[in-house]
């Protein structure tokens, strides 16, 4: 599954037609999606994911969204360096 933005091709549109358009156990699937993305999934969850996640449109879209949010948090947020003055103060106090 590719999270990138693009115009769906004819083939993709055709594939979508054969997919499940609604998920009767979406709440449970959301928990599995979270486990997969956090690298915390059990073997059973991984199996379930592999077997079902290309058949269900709501779950594919949810997976893409969750993955995109997770990546945005880790990549887009500015990480500030700790001010040198704080480091100096800490080291001075520890060494005194």
């Amino acid at each position, binding site marked *: 599954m590719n*999270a990138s*933005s693009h115009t769906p091709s004819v083939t993709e549109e055709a594939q979508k037609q054969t997919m499940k358009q609604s998920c009767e156990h*979406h*709440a449970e699937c*959301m*928990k599995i999606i*979270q*486990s997969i993305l*956090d*690298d*915390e999934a059990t073997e059973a969850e991984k199996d379930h994911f592999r077997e079902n996640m290309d058949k269900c449109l709501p779950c594919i*879209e949810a997976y*893409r*969204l*969750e*993955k*995109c*949010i*997770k990546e*945005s*948090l*880790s990549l*887009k*947020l*500015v*990480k*500030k*360096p*700790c*001010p040198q003055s*704080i*480091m100096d*103060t*800490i080291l001075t*106090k*520890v*060494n005194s």
Partner: protein
Amino acid sequence: MSVAMSESITTNGYTDDLRYEIFNREFMPHIDSMYNFAFRLTMDEDDANDLVQDTYLKAFRFISSFEQGTNAKAWLFRILKNSFINDYRKKSKEPSKVDYQEVETTYNSEEASDTTYTVDLRADAVQELIGDEVANALNALPVDFRTVIILCDIEGFTYEEMAKILDIPIGTVRSRLHRARNLLKEKLKSYASSMGYDS
């Protein structure tokens, strides 16, 4: 339970040289992550500076309760989180910003909300958002929810490490993350809508 309390349980007889070595080698490399965590918790530069400084001085004072070879970053984060709760949360401006009713309702409805909860937001819309918008959405969350997202998605801690840092069971880590992410999606959705992105 504070980290400091475990000192009486484990007392490693480190020499002075070893104490400085551990401090410099194991603790100092995490200072940028610690600073960012402190800043995202307090949302105030002066408070973040004080919190990081206090945490590192505490870490040095109680270094005998740190076991070499264990996860120094998680150990430091736990001290910082405890210092934040005990020393900063009460005096900071944060409490007035937190809607405790919302937190209460949210905690109590964790399971109930699962079955019906969906936010109409597309991945493409999230991709359009810039870092500041994502940061603002994150900062708008109540601190307990903000914390689990920071630990998991920004700092990459495992559920087990998060459970230790936060003193909560792994099941609670899991469900709190789930709720935190749903709340975050709501905030992101309002940013995406206000920016005119089709969601």
